[in-house]
C-alpha cells in the first residue's frame, strides 16, 4: 500500500462525460491486482472533503489507469486536471477477483462503468477462456468496445434501446445466456446494484460461482472507519477491505436495492 503524489500522464475524455486518467505510480502498478482500487484526493481543501475511490482499470509498467464518469463535484473537478498535475493517490486497496487458473469459461458482466475493473481482469486472463457481456443504455454509451476488440476477446452486447446487440437489460441477456449455456465456470460482474443483484441471484440459482465488485461511500478506504459496510450473510462487510470484490453468496441481496 502506497500513498504517493502521482503525476498525471494524461486525462482524456473518451465519450461524453467519461474520462480516462493515467497516473505515474510505480509501486501501485507493480502490486495491483484486478478488482483493486485507488483512493484519490481530488484536491486540497474541504470541497470535496473526502477521497474518492476508483477501480484500477489497467496497469502498464509503472503506470496505472482509471476510467471514470463525471457524476458530481469530485469527478467534475478530476476531469479538469491537466497532464503534469500531481494527485495524492492511495493504493492498491482492497480484495480483487480470485480466479483459479484451471477455470475454462469465465463470463465477465459489465454494466456501464463496470467495465473499468473488468477490463483489467480480462487483460490478465487467458483470452480464450472469457466472454464479456457489455450493457449500456444505447449504442453511443457503450464503453471501451474498440479496446476490447483489440484485446481479442469475445464480446456480446445488450442495449436498453436495442440500438446495438440484444435489446433489453443486461441481466435479461445474461439470463438467456445461462439458459442456453450450462458450461460457465465463473461469473465476474461489476455495475449498478440492481443489475448486480439480478446477476448474482441468477448465478446462485444456476449454481455458478459468481464474484461481484461492489460500491459504497467510503471514508478511510483501508478498513478503519467501518463506514463503507454492506449487509453480508452474517455480519456487515467492509467494501474497502473485505471487498470490493465479494463472492455473490456473501451478500444479503434481499436488502440491497
Amino acid at each position: 500500500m502506497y500513498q504517493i503524489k502521482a503525476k498525471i500522464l494524461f486525462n482524456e475524455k473518451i465519450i461524453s462525460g467519461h474520462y480516462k486518467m493515467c497516473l505515474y505510480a510505480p509501486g501501485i502498478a507493480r502490486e495491483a491486482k484486478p478488482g483493486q482500487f485507488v483512493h484519490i484526493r481530488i484536491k486540497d481543501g474541504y470541497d470535496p472533503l473526502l477521497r474518492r475511490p476508483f477501480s484500477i482499470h489497467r496497469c502498464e509498467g509503472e503506470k496505472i489507469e482509471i476510467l471514470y464518469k463525471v457524476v458530481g463535484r469530485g469527478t467534475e473537478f478530476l476531469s479538469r486536471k491537466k497532464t503534469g498535475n500531481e494527485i495524492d493517490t492511495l493504493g492498491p486497496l482492497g480484495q480483487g477477483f480470485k480466479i483459479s487458473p484451471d477455470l475454462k469459461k469465465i463470463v465477465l458482466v459489465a454494466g456501464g462503468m463496470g467495465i473499468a475493473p473488468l477490463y483489467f481482469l480480462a487483460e490478465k486472463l487467458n483470452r480464450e477462456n472469457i466472454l464479456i457481456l457489455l450493457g449500456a443504455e444505447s449504442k453511443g454509451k457503450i464503453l471501451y468496445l474498440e479496446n476490447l476488440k483489440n484485446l481479442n476477446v469475445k464480446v456480446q452486447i445488450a442495449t436498453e434501446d436495442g440500438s446495438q446487440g440484444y435489446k433489453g437489460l443486461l441481466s435479461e441477456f445474461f439470463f438467456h445466456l445461462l439458459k442456453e449455456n450450462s458450461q460457465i465456470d465463473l461469473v465476474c460482474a461489476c455495475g449498478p446494484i440492481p443489475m448486480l443483484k439480478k446477476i448474482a441471484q441468477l448465478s446462485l440459482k444456476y449454481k455458478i460461482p459468481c464474484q461481484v465488485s461492489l460500491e459504497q461511500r467510503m471514508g478511510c478506504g483501508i478498513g478503519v472507519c467501518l463506514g463503507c459496510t454492506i449487509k453480508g450473510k452474517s455480519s456487515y462487510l467492509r467494501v474497502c477491505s473485505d471487498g470490493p470484490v465479494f463472492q455473490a453468496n456473501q451478500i444479503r441481496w434481499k436488502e440491497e436495492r
Partner: protein
Amino acid sequence: MNINLKSKLGRISLNNPVLVAAGTFGFGEEYTALINLNKLGGIITKTVTLEPRKGNPPPRLTETPAGLLNAIGLENPGIDVFLKEKLPFLSQFEAALIVNIAGEKEEDYLTLAERLNEKERIDALEINISCPNVKEKGLIFGTDPGRTFLLVKKLREVTNIPLIIKLTPNVTDISEIAQAAQEAGAEALSLINTVLGMSIDVETRRPKLGNITGGLSGPAIRPIAVRMVRDTFQKVSLPIIGMGGITCSEDALEFILTGASAVAVGTANFIDPSTALRIVEGIKEYMQRKGIENFEDLIGWLENSV
C-alpha cells in the same frame, strides 16, 4: 533551540501532544502500512464495548459541506477480542495507549474498566459518554451532569487507570458536564465528540444515512469545538484533549492556544493519513518561530487584549 514537545494530562505522559481520535484509527493495524505509529503522541482506540456490536445499517457515511456525517453505531468486536487480538498489537508502540470504552448501562462501563484495570500497558481509558449513534442510553450520561458524576465516581472506585471523559457538544452548557467529571475524579477531558446532524437525498426522499441521524465531524465543526474548549478551559482545571475538524498544525494550535493540552486528529486521518505527524512537525516549527521551548507554555497562550 531545544524544543520539548512533551505534554502531561494529569498522570498521563505524552511524548508529543498529537493523538489520533477514537473511531478514526481503528486499532492501529491498518495505518502501520502508511505511517510510523511510534511518532504519534498517543493512540485512542475505536470504542470497545462489552459484547461485540454489529453497528448500524448502511449507508453509514455521507459528506456534507466541509463535514462528514457518520452513523457507524459503535461496531466493534467486543472486549474479549480486543484483549486477545488488538491489545498485544497496540502495546508495541511508544505512543501513549488510550482505550475508549462505552456501555449501554453503568455496569457495562464498570465491568469494562475492571477488565482493563490490570493491563499495564494501557495509559488511560477514554470514557465515551457521548456517542450520538447508538439507540441505547449512551448519550444520556453525557448530557446529564448528575449521571456523569455518578458514572465517573464509580469508575474511579473500580480502577486506578487515569480516566479521560469524552464529552458531547450536543448540550446547552458543556462546562457543567466537565465540572461534574472533574468533581468525580476524572484525569482529563476529551472534547468534542460529533455534533448530531442529518441529511436528506431529495431525489429518493430518504435520509442519506441508514440510521437517519448521525454525527457531524470534520472542519465544519471546528469553530464549535474551539468554542467549547474555551468554555471548559475557563471553568474547569482538568487538562483537555481538543478535537473537532483538525487538519493541520494551525488548526491544532487554535485548540492549544485556547487551552487544550493535547489534540486529536479524527476525520483528517481518512483524508491524509500523515496528518497527525505533519501536525507534530508544524507545532515544532511554530514553537521555533515564536521562540517557545516547552510545549506546555503554548497551552492557553492567547493575547489578553482583543
